[in-house]
């Protein structure tokens, strides 16, 4: 006997598609919510995309943020954002991009200022400066990467499977990315290059899921010739359910350890992936299958192409 997460198989499938109206509405509502949050709250773009200067310093004592702000204000850094980073003693100071020349030395100025006026034993942990031009380019390249990734995947999956499966896979990816971004807008987490990497990894992961399911759907359409498409999809989802759950579980495990132990710099990445993996699991079970049905998939679409015999379409000579 096996130790199993689920006790379902083809003879006793879970009727996932019975809930498809409900889950479709759920998806639509959450998507609309995400878009609303994104347009109202806006994303908190990180330094990589906005440009500007950021320093992370470690003080020898827990830092008094309001005192820091006063010092900065008195020295023409009134526009600086000051916040704790990880511990009480670690502080992040971020200054928006400036037009005047010499903006690349703002980081040095800040360090010198804090060292002389606040804490001589302060330690520099990190300095980042991104020129406005570079920020714009990174944002452009990032957006492009997401779009190119989706197009490549659309092409590959259409080529390997069928356009209905490919299209619904990509719509599912779109949903995953939208949810993660919506959540980031809601909590105003900073979106930087590592988040972009996480989004692409989510795309890869979520696609993994939908390919396993799509593969099974194709196989079962050929196998269960008497079942209607809804049942075939239900059976396929049930058969792959334990795999979907086990893989999600192991991935979630490592992501949680990453979130707990990986340190501040990787926190955003871990959160984005964690959300992405959870949404990805949902979308590969519900969103995609629902869409495949709505697009009207049938057995004929998934039959292996018949090998044409040479001359078969011609009348026999004799």
């Amino acid at each position, binding site marked *: 006997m096996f*130790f199993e997460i689920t006790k379902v*198989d083809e003879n006793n499938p879970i009727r996932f598609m019975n809930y498809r109206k409900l889950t479709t509405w759920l998806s639509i509502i959450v998507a609309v919510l995400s878009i609303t949050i994104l347009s109202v709250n806006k994303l908190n773009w990180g330094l990589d995309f906005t440009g500007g200067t950021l320093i*992370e310093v*470690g003080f020898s004592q827990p830092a008094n943020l309001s005192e820091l702000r006063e010092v900065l204000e008195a020295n023409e850094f009134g526009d600086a954002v000051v916040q704790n980073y990880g511990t009480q003693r670690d502080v992040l100071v971020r200054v928006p991009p400036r037009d005047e020349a010499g903006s*690349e*030395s703002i*980081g040095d100025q800040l*360090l*010198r200022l804090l060292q002389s006026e606040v804490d001589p034993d302060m*330690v*520099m*942990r*990190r*300095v*980042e*400066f*991104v*020129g406005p*031009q*570079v920020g714009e380019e*990174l944002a452009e390249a*990032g957006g*492009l*990467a997401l779009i190119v*990734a989706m197009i*490549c*995947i659309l092409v*590959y*999956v259409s080529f390997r499977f069928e356009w209905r499966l490919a299209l619904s896979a990509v719509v599912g990816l779109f949903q995953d990315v939208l949810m993660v971004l919506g959540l980031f807008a809601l909590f105003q987490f900073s979106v930087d*290059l*590592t988040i972009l*990497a996480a989004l*692409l*990894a989510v*795309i*890869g*992961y979520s*696609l*993994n899921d939908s*390919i*396993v399911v799509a*593969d*099974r759907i194709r196989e079962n359409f050929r196998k269960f010739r008497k079942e209607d498409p809804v049942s075939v999809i239900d059976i396929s989802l049930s058969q792959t359910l334990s*795999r979907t759950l*086990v*893989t999600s579980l*192991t*991935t979630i*495990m*490592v*992501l949680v*350890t*990453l979130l*707990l*132990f*990986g*340190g501040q*710099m*990787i926190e955003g*990445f871990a959160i984005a992936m964690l959300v992405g993996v959870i949404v990805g699991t949902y979308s590969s079970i519900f969103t995609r299958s629902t869409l495949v049905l709505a697009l009207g998939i049938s057995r004929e679409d998934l039959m292996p192409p018949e090998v044409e015999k040479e001359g078969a379409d011609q009348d026999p000579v004799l």
Partner: protein
Amino acid sequence: MLNRYPLWKNLAIMLIVFFGALYALPNIYGEDYAVQISATRGGEITTQTLDQVERTLRQNNIEPRGLSMADGQILVRLDSDDDQLAARELLVDELGLQYIVALNLAPAMPKWLAAIGGDPLKLGLDLRGGVHFLMEVDMEEALRKMNEQMVTTVRDRLIEERIRYRGVAEDGNDIVIQLRSPEDFQSAVSTLRNEYAGYEMRTEAGTQTIRLAMTEQNLQEIRANAIDQNITILRNRVDELGVAEPLIQRQGQDRIVVELPGVQDTARAKEILGATATLEFRFVDTENSLQDALQGRVPFGSRLFDQRGGGKQLLENRIILTGDHIVNAQSGFDENGRPQVNITLDSAGGRMMSLATRDRIGDPMATVFIEFIATGETLEDGRLDFQRVEEVVNVATIQARLGSGFRITGIGSVQDAQNLSLILRAGALIAPIQIVEERTVGPSLGAENVRAGMTAILAGFVLVLIFMGIYYRKFGLVANLALLTNLVMIVGIMSLIPGATLTMPGMAGILLTVGMAVDANVIIFERIREELKEGRSPQQAIARGYENAFSTIADANITTLITALILFAVGTGSIKGFAVTLAIGIVTSMFTAILGTRAVINLTWGRNKRLTELSI
């Protein structure tokens, strides 16, 4: 039915795993504190230098753990970071400006591993600490100066030929000349035709206009030169910083990446990188004797200069020309195929050169390269103290009265000619450069990142191992073995690929592949369970499970590989590191999860004819 792999397949799998493990091995030995010494400005690393280094250290009670010389570098291994810092200071004082003494970490692996090309993982700047600069060459400014130059040159040429013009102006990168009469137009056309390389002449007789259009090739050349010139200068500067493994390379059309591992004082780094170099042409003093001057009787109006590679030269105090009049310098060959350097001056420089050399044909002329080198001291206002270092890099005899274009011949080798033209360009009018991106990570944060990353990887790894062991029992243990092998192989391959560096996101990538690598085994094992439920025999279930799962796993991994490649293409620095580990992890996990587990399962259960149950 039995499940067996042919012998060659088992051997091939073992061999691949063996090599993966072999190249991962250097990582467990750790690193020694080291000081790395290399030569610059004509210095040379010889066995004498090696003796000198050893003597200096011994005299000051520093016992090196190891001392070796290879590839023109000396590597001194030391026991502690205190020794390392002390040794560096001693050696800088002892060896002087002709040597670069840099702090470094040297892999402590045994010699045989180094001999087969083993190397530990290279850590990215976010893990080892250091500075990353992205610099942009201001091409607009470089071109603007170039065009201004050209307008003056053309104007002077027309005046010289007594051709009357209405105006000479720049239009984009072209020069537009308006003549006063058809006669002037005709003579201008014949004068300017084929006069300037890199420009194409277009004439318009009706409006008496001549347009000198910059060719695309010339434009590309100017861009390339501006970048090369700045890279050369940056190399010299970086040498001064005493950085062990700097990276300086062109990125895209007009940018340069500079990576300085271990450097934390960015203010100092920027000052040193921004220090200027210049160049002077002077006459060699032939009236007085060099011997007398060397003995302390330096004549009035002259001065002694160091010569690169050793020796001295007595040069006149009067400067003929400074480097900011140099427009270009190219190495090439003369009529007899001997190496030479062609130099182009701006028109003012040409006039000065022409005046100065009129009566001095046959006299030797020296090229002096001047750098400003940080002494390591700080001035009162917090700025660095720079010392002016002058060196004679070339002496040539003036063959004829020189103008705005002249050449230096009689150079020993092609290599020397190239070096001289590089130096001439480095001291020339510089295309301005600006820092557009900086990322500095302090050593404490770097070390913390390594610790955090390792903890996360280990914890995540152990969790997955426990889960798989419980859920899939003995088959789970096989998957765990594959997972472990996978980790070793990722490290081995990353260590082997020269360009691959481990970054913080890269560590996340490794952890993620741990989570995702089990997916292949999950798919296979779930399949085997299904086959068993359908009533197949254990051996058949194993065979069919692997067979049916393969295309699914391949499809799923190829799409992830696509995203990794895209990430690599658009990502910078640490993100590229993530893409690399992800891609390597996908490939190795396919190998270990499909072939590796199958080999183990075949060997363990595949030979048993009476197998009735699987521990899955």
